[in-house]
């Protein structure tokens, strides 16, 4: 049986690269422009409109929500575009990220420093992941449309530990 991980993430150090796990609890959905704004806030010494302590960010920009559904198609986007913003967020308490594709050396180093993990979600599988999202609400930067920050409550959200807190990686 696949291991369930309850969020916020408490046991990042125990996760090993290559493990398949199911995430349950709260993810923060955010991508390019939201990251740029988060970094601008942190750099100017201001507080973020949500807490990063123990948080796991899901790199996602969902499709519009059809009637009667919780969310539209919502698969992972390319993590590498967030690399320049990520070390500062990790230093501010972020414990995990969910996305697709590899990360930069700087991000891996910041993950080791802060004991954080990067999960791989299957790229393009927007319909599959939408089914695991039980609640979704925009919580910040709503002017950005699909690029706003979302609070996502997920159940059995299937991911692979891609880079663990010791810097071990599953990428070929």
């Amino acid at each position, binding site marked *: 049986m696949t291991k369930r991980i309850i969020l916020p993430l408490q046991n990042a150090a125990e996760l090993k690269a*290559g493990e*398949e796990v199911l995430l349950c609890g709260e993810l923060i959905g955010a991508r390019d*422009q939201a990251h740029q704004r988060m970094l601008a806030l942190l750099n100017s010494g201001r507080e973020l409109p949500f807490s990063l302590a123990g948080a796991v960010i899901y790199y*996602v*920009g*969902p*499709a*519009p*929500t*059809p009637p009667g*559904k919780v969310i*539209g*198609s*919502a*698969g992972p*986007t*390319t993590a*590498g575009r967030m690399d320049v913003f990520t070390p500062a967020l990790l230093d501010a308490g972020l414990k995990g990220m969910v996305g*697709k*594709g*590899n990360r930069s050396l700087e991000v891996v180093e910041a993950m080791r420093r802060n004991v954080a993990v990067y999960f*791989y979600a*299957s*790229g*393009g*599988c*927007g*319909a*599959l992941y*939408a*089914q695991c999202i039980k609640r979704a609400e925009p919580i910040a930067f709503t002017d950005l*449309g*699909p690029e706003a920050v979302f609070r996502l409550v997920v159940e059995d959200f*299937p991911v*692979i530990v*891609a880079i663990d807190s010791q810097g071990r990686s*599953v*990428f*070929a």
Partner: protein
Amino acid sequence: MISSEVVYQEVYKAVQAMNVSLPVDVAGRLKAAQQQAEGPAQAVLGQINENLLIAAREGIPFCQDTGMVWVHVSLGEEVQIRGLKETISRAVADAYREGYFRSSVVEDPLRERKNTGTNLPAVFHFDIVPGRTLEIYILAKGFGSENCSRVFMLKPTQGREAVIDSVCAVMKEARGVPCPPVVLGVGIGGTFDYAALLSKRALTRALDHPHPCPYYAQLESDLLEAVNALGIGPGGLGGGCTALAVKVESFSTHIAGLPVAVTVNCWADRRAKVLLSEI
């Protein structure tokens, strides 16, 4: 005269369908790949195939990045039609809004990057050909993969091997980012820009249709073998299935050059075509 209402209906249907279910040849190759894979590659392909079933059942797009729409129109010079570009654009906007597809297009690439909210404009290319038919080829191009696309201006004497090396170099740089197993469109010849256009046109051909010229059909199969030997695998997690297909289009070029363009497409190889004739 081909009625713009017919063009609207056909493009609307094609654009709605392409984001919810894959062409049968692509779906077939993904299923076959899962059966041959092992380890993480099998897990990733299993999720992709399960995702396709869910999308079809729920009537939602299989990927949230429903792409920027690319349109190539091949217009017979005997065809009479009014407002073709506007009609196609209206069909795209309506299909995206009514299908709950994501609008992923920003108005200006540098200033403000405000989402247009309609997924317009689409990118258009027009070609005038003899005859009485109207052919509309459509791609919904995701940008996780598009960002990995490249153009190389090779030396004219470098030849076939350098083309293969260039295509492999693109995937070595891209690794798992463009959602492998990918479909690659390769344009060889022409000018800098025309090679890029050829690489997109290559993606409009069905995977089961090799290039009609045996030399280029062989190149397609050698390219596929070379890319799959890189070991990048589904999602970049390793394995022998890095590409589902490589499609090549070529054109005459200058004595001093050998342009090679590679468009990288994700496994969500969304393509559609609409063929209409003057009655």
